[in-house]
């Protein structure tokens, strides 16, 4: 589904992503973990076309999408849910959802919020006419996810979807991600809740200083002592 080869991304004079190759197979949930500054978000932003790449190749569904602008990459079926949700605070929940239905040229394609989406996110259904700024952190993250799904993606890029959430809301987000994967969506997620992310991932990569230092199946990495040493550092307190 997605193949990134030899990707290099420069950011503020440093190589944020230094020759990274990763793959996401169709229907797989793949996670990227690593310390802050390891290059995780830069890599996602390069895939979605928000950040220019220095070199490397990105192939999606058999098509070379390297260097395409972000709005064309969305049209190919890749949707990114940004870190920090980035909702429109002065718009209602309904308007935020419909923001996911605008064409590249700025036309509202339709103003239908599918019933299936409301069933998946009942809390949003109850609050369609509330301002998005009135939502709790967990609800806001659900809205960001739902807005992304309005675009009918084939590959979802999630940048730290559990940031700032209480443990119970973190579980809800992980349950939802698992459910979406089980229904056939391909997902690439950047996460700092390492253990929970690895536990639900089909495959995972650990980044350090812009490079992949470790990769493997999620449950294998969970038990890999080198991961504990090189990245988690403090396994005994986790």
């Amino acid at each position: 589904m997605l193949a990134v080869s030899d990707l290099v991304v420069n950011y503020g004079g440093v190589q944020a992503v230094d020759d990274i190759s990763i793959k996401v197979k169709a229907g797989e949930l793949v996670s990227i973990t690593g310390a802050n500054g390891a290059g995780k978000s830069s890599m996602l932003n390069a895939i979605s076309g928000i950040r220019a790449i220095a070199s490397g190749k990105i192939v999606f569904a058999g098509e070379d999408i390297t260097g395409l602008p972000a709005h064309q990459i969305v049209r190919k079926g890749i949707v990114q849910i940004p870190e920090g949700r980035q909702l429109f605070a002065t718009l209602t929940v309904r308007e935020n959802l419909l923001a996911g239905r605008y064409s590249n040229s700025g036309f509202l394609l339709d103003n239908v919020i599918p019933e299936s989406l409301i069933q998946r996110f009942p809390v949003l259904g109850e609050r369609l006419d509330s301002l998005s700024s009135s939502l709790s952190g967990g609800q806001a993250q659900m809205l960001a996810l739902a807005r992304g799904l309005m675009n009918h993606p084939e590959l979802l890029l999630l940048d730290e979807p559990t940031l700032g959430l209480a443990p119970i809301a973190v579980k809800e987000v992980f349950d939802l991600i698992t459910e979406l994967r089980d229904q056939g969506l391909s997902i690439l997620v950047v996460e700092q809740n390492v253990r929970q992310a690895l536990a639900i991932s089909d495959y995972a990569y650990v980044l350090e200083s812009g490079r992949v230092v470790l990769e493997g199946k999620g449950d294998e990495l969970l038990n890999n002592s080198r991961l504990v040493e090189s990245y988690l550092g403090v396994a005994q307190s986790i």
Partner: protein
Amino acid sequence: MLELQAVGKTFGELQALHGIDLHVRRGTVSGLIGPNGSGKTTLVNIITGIYAPDSGRVLLDGKDVSRASADQITRLGVSRSFQNIRIFNRMSVLENVIAALIGHHKPGLATLLGRAKRIGDPRVTAARRALETVGLLEQGDLFANELPLPLRRRLEIARALACDPKFLVLDEPAGGMTPAETASISELIRSRIAPGRTCVVIEHKMDLISHVCEHLCVLNHGEKIAEGDPRSVVNQPEVIEAYLG
């Protein structure tokens, strides 16, 4: 040290806090946890004088400060760090801490900063001491936005520490951090920041809470649903149901 008596706060139709009682003993570290939207930040805003409570009282060292302004509360030795880091990206790390001591809203901040640095102002000494406490003294001349997130969090804490507060509120000091980074900030709080102070820590990362807090209070829908020793609190069914899941 700090006592809240039946504190309530309403925003429009939303009752953010219902009759909260809280007692933070001098020299202890208390944790405040709860689901998103449970009222934690509202409570901190009341303690620090940003909001006045609609009902109930806030006592600091026995003195009623329910109606005191944020400035007055600060002068009584209460300081806080913010969940959303509030630093000046294009100022140096040291200047950020000095600015916290001078006060952001004063006109001519740049002039004051220049003067403070030239004449060896005591505020510079205080700022350096705060940076040393959080382990950032060597990075003092870097631009604040050159720091990676875990060090920006430390700078945010240094800004709160610069006035040498006796009561410190830390709002999500490990927000956005990985497990290893969280362990590091937990140890810093426990060994360098908490000693000699009274602290309240808001955090979702239970590793940090269990490492630094002697007392834990849980909010849900603006009500206190549990408090006590952290280990016993996190095993209470209502806490598991509302917060831990």
